């Protein structure tokens, strides 16, 4: 295992018969992911793109040995889908679904945590380790195997940055999209130790955005526990307070969550800060060139 997924990861897709579920099943399979099962209640016994569909996650796990779930179930039913997965023994769930009420996510988070299960997301692109496995919706074309780890709160912006790293002639160990919601299952602080411990990662790119204090928390963690170089970018320097900028979590509320506060904290923690996303690949290349760990 690199970070969270590897070639032993066997994925069940919850909501596989929906449009998104089907499209990304195809993409995951094309990436090389072992998509072993799908779940849509009432459609058990059918197939989607050669993947057997079951009525319940429990069925899917028992029959296929699935050990990770990718959830595309619509927001009103996503909480139930996640709890079902956890009860069926799934210990890694990528929740792609957006617009899940945070009150539901609080339940999902604490339920999963008390059972030792990890949630990535919700409202997230998921996780991809080039040459190994991908669980989620990050476009296959942006990946290239390498030694840069990427952790991000954004979706498309991450694709752009990951693609930039590829075009710069570098590659990624694992790319992890945490999701843009106010409550996420895995935060920077939760993800950083995985990359710090990962022997295949030499450097971490951290892509934050306004809202909350996840980047400030990350800065504190980096200062204390991260020895690998960190290149950081935070989107939303020009965003006004009190407005939700696309993501439910991207809002400066009561003076908290500004890009400035985050950038300062990251800089003080020793991270190299990019002013614009297109600067990241060069910063990474320079840092890796200078890095003793390479």
């Amino acid at each position, binding site marked *: 295992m690199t970070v969270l997924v590897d070639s032993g990861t066997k994925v069940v897709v919850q909501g596989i018969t929906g449009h998104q579920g089907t*499209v990304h099943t195809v993409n995951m399979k094309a990436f090389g992911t072992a998509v072993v099962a799908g779940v849509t209640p009432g459609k058990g016994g059918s197939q989607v793109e050669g993947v057997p569909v079951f009525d319940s996650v429990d069925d899917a796990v028992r029959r296929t040995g699935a050990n990770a779930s990718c959830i595309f179930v619509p*927001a*009103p039913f996503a909480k139930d889908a996640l709890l079902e997965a956890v009860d069926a023994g799934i210990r890694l769930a990528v929740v792609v679904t957006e*617009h*899940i*009420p*945070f*009150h539901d996510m*609080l*339940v999902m*988070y*604490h339920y999963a945590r008390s059972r030792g299960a990890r949630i990535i997301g919700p409202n997230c*692109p998921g996780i991809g380790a080039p040459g190994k496995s991908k669980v989620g*919706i*990050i*476009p296959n*074309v*942006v990946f290239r195997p390498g030694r840069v780890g990427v952790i*991000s*709160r*954004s*979706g*498309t*912006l*991450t*694709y*752009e940055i990951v*693609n930039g790293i590829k075009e710069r002639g570098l590659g990624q160990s694992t790319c992890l999209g945490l999701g*843009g919601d*106010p*409550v996420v299952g895995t*935060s920077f602080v939760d993800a950083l130790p995985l990359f710090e411990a990962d022997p295949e990662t030499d450097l971490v790119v951290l*892509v934050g*955005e*306004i*809202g*909350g*204090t*996840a980047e400030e*928390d990350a800065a504190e963690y980096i200062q204390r526990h991260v020895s690998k170089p960190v290149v950081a*970018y935070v*989107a*939303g*320097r*020009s*965003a*006004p307070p009190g*407005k*939700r*900028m*696309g*993501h*439910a*979590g*991207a809002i400066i509320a*009561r*003076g908290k969550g500004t890009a400035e506060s985050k950038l300062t904290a990251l800089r003080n923690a020793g991270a190299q800060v990019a002013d*614009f*996303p*297109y600067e990241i690949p060069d910063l990474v290349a320079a840092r890796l060139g200078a890095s003793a760990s390479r």
Partner: protein
Amino acid sequence: MVKLAEWRGKEIFRSYGIPVPRGAVVRSPEDARKAAESGSVPLPCVVKAQVLAGGRGKGGAVRFADSPAAAAEAAQAILALEFKGEKVREVLLEEKLAIAKELYVSISLDRSRRVPLLMASAQGGVEIETVDDSALLRVEIDPFAGLLAYEKRRVAAALGVSGPVRASLDRLLDQLWIVFQKEDAELVEINPLAIVGDGVIALDAKVIIEDDAAFRHPEFNEVRDDRTPLEEIAREQEIAFVQLDGDIGVIANGAGLTMATLDVLTQYGGRPGVFLDLGGTDDPKKVTQAFLLMAKARPSAVFLNIFGGVTRCDTVALGLVDALKEVPEAERFPLVARIRGNNEARGIEILRAAGVGARTDLKECAQSVVAAAAGRRVAPGARA
């Protein structure tokens, strides 16, 4: 984010058994007079503008009246106000109470700790941000176990209440927690929470309902007071659309990418006027819809920045070309398009065929759109 007006918040509080002053909401001086005359609002009374911004006391948006005529007069004065840019349409009349002390309580979300957070302070009636941390009690609520008795003891101790007042506070806290959960609130805040006689009573009410839980609360569908008309249309069309102070429209896919585009634009001297996140769509009709909405905001210029992933570049191009045909002459705008990623070549080709030049370098595009907006002249993109 559904910010409820004070009177709506209090209506919810009342329905959950949280004590609020007797009062009535009116929309005319005449109704204010009637409310005071009929006794549904006891005199003397407080007359408050029902606006979402804070600081009403200092802004002349809160008055007092001791007769029906005075109530009508106060209502008239307040209804004539435009408070921090917001026209006053509703006025709340409430009995004036003998306040022994003003406290503060709220429940909100602690994003880092992933728990509901109860905050309480003995210093009520002021902006809570100005209260020193040492005077603010924070209690993390377990979402499963709920607000615990020992946690309420901590609150009572911090607020310095005991006896019957404490019993009243305990009941209020229990109900406030239930409101927070049942109503899918982001914030329930009572500031000030007043001690009146042997009990506590919510003098103000700030309730914000979470947008994503709207499907569970159809009763709030009509209550979107703080949105602009275009933002309201966008919400119905499920487009992430935020109106800002500037004049340049930004359309991108993904919240992070859209924000980053705003940042680059600002860096090169542009002033963003619309944030439009297409999200992850592969339906050209959705793209057309978004462009037509953008046109309604009358931007000086528009910056389209797409990184094709789930959203394919050719899909966006097709939608854009359709939109260009439909935008009325008066609403056309200079357009700068940057397209990268999935089906990039095909997208650029489609746009070129429709007379729209598209590039791939973000910096150059930003500079072009700023120039286009400044001069209202057609720069590298085409005039739509």
